[in-house]
């Protein structure tokens, strides 16, 4: 992936861990996030 995609992924993936009500994304949420960032294809399929 491009560094820009990785930066966007980092911004979606990590900061929520500082919130008390954080929970790990489920598979559909993770898949939707990857698709928002343009990460598609078999490698990025989580389900």
């Amino acid at each position: 992936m491009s560094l820009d995609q990785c930066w966007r992924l980092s911004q979606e993936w990590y900061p929520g861990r500082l919130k008390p009500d954080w929970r790990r994304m489920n598979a559909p949420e993770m898949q939707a996030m990857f698709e928002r960032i343009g990460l598609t294809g078999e490698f990025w399929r989580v389900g």
Partner: protein
Amino acid sequence: MATSVHALVRVQIYRHLMATGRAPSPAEAAAGLGRETGEIEQAYRDLAESRVITFAPGTRAIWMAHPFSAAPTPYRVTSEGISYWANCAWDALGIAAMLGRDTECLCRCPDCEGQVDLSVKGGALAQDGIIHFVVPPRSFWENVAFT
């Protein structure tokens, strides 16, 4: 609804890492939260069981609380005079995302050995480039150290 001790401990671990660059011991986290150390030790075990943190092999000391590493790695991030270790190139940007401020990170590409600038200034990357992921997301935790 009351915040669970696990959530409090998770947030405390990250706040300590962000403030110091070091992972807190259970005693340090307990002191920060005004709790008993034994209760925090149990919370650490539970957080490790649920893969929120990873212990160093054979210990109950935090090795990884993604994106942070408690052990030195090739990915050293600095910000406001504090040094952090990231687990990988992605995590170097993850630390920038968690800190929410400018960071510097110069590292070597593991493929071509050229210098890569993973710094973030004003919310923007210092350079463009490509990151190669070897392990697909569905397999991240099969061997998290390799990932």
